[in-house]
């Protein structure tokens, strides 16, 4: 079956958010060996960190404004220190 356009768009957005946060906010990749409690999802916290940095509304969710900011061309150096 073909993928529904909205589902495809949502999948792309999730991939964008994860890649962005991995590149610039030190979000750990799932395939890296690290300890993570099942109930703890670091993505909203990293999103909040990013939203705060850019002066966006801090929701912890990939809303339209956040996605727009992530799509902007930018410097490849992370916004937070490693």
């Amino acid at each position, binding site marked *: 079956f073909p993928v529904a356009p909205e589902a495809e768009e949502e999948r792309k957005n999730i991939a964008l958010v994860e890649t962005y946060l991995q*590149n*610039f906010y030190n979000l750990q990749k799932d395939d890296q060996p690290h300890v993570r409690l099942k109930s703890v999802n670091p993505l909203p916290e990293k999103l909040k960190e990013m939203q705060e*940095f*850019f*002066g966006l509304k801090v929701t912890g969710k990939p809303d339209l404004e956040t996605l727009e*900011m992530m799509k*902007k*061309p*930018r*410097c*490849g*150096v992370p*916004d937070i*220190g*490693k």
Partner: protein
Amino acid sequence: YVFTEGNPKWKRNNLTYRIVNYTPLMRRADVDEAIQKALSVWSNVTPLTFQKIEDKMADIMISFVVRDHQDNSPFDGPNGQLAHAFQPGEAIGGDVHLDNEEYWTKDGRGYNLFIVIAHELGHSLGLSHSTDPGALMYPTYAYTDPKEFHLPQDDIDGIQAIYGQSNAPVQPTGPTTPQACDPSLTFDAVTTLRGEMMFFKGRYILRKHPQRIETELNFISLFWPKLPSGIQAAYENIERDEVLLFKEDKYWVLRGYDIAPGYPKSIYRLGFPKTVKRVNAAYSDENTGKTYFFVADRYWRYDENKRSMDHGYPRKILSDFGKIGRVDAAFQKDGYVYFFHGTTQFQFDPRGKRIVRQMKSNSWFDC
């Protein structure tokens, strides 16, 4: 501004740089010029000097590379990540890498090489990303005409905190990012645009929608890349769905949200005498079709239907607008005219020909 974690810095002030290769999209001379100009952005405000070397390892190696280039930080093709740089240090430290799959230009058509390298050199010298949206060290790309570029104060403060001030007798200062709730905020020009209010300040627009609480801050170049910064006057002609924007002896027309072709044009086409070099403020009365232009302590009246200046002008502003002598910006809204002078704003009733209220210039922002 933010320092790179661990506060790395160069131990010497005399640094070397080398251009390892060139992008095929630009003339070599233009690349050289962009890099030299980017280096001078930082050397102008610090005791740092940069010497170009051709053959050996330099402190700052500048290269155009693509995708995986063996530094664990691959580029991603066109757009997205444009460039990156390494903090001060040995070997790869200080180096600048530019994604050679970007459309590099010396102007605003693609990504401006000068702006991007100037930002990256900030990293090479020990600065991290700033949260000030007007700073050069803000992480996202924003175009500024290199001829109009001035290093923002946030970046000057940051780099001088690392390397100290310039040896020049007069210390350079830079523009600061306007804050909507700053009580000392003044404006270059104000206009309505299809129900919104646009406040011009330097290279920024503060955009306020009456139904939204927050004020949006954007670069003028984000909306209109061909418009210069420092717009001096603006007014909306609601009848024609146009906004006219003025700087020095030129004006541009926005039709809807787009700059109309064929602009800028000379303000003398509107009927100003050659003695007028710039317009300080303007507003158009939608009821009468008359537009008022304020120049120093006088004003002219223009008939939008006849498209010519009315006779009997200029007149003294003081003669017809109460105690308002000089005007920075003006606009009409809901039958009233609002005049801005410094941090003060006057609400003027054109029917009663009197000032009905006096408030702060930033009263439109929900502070």
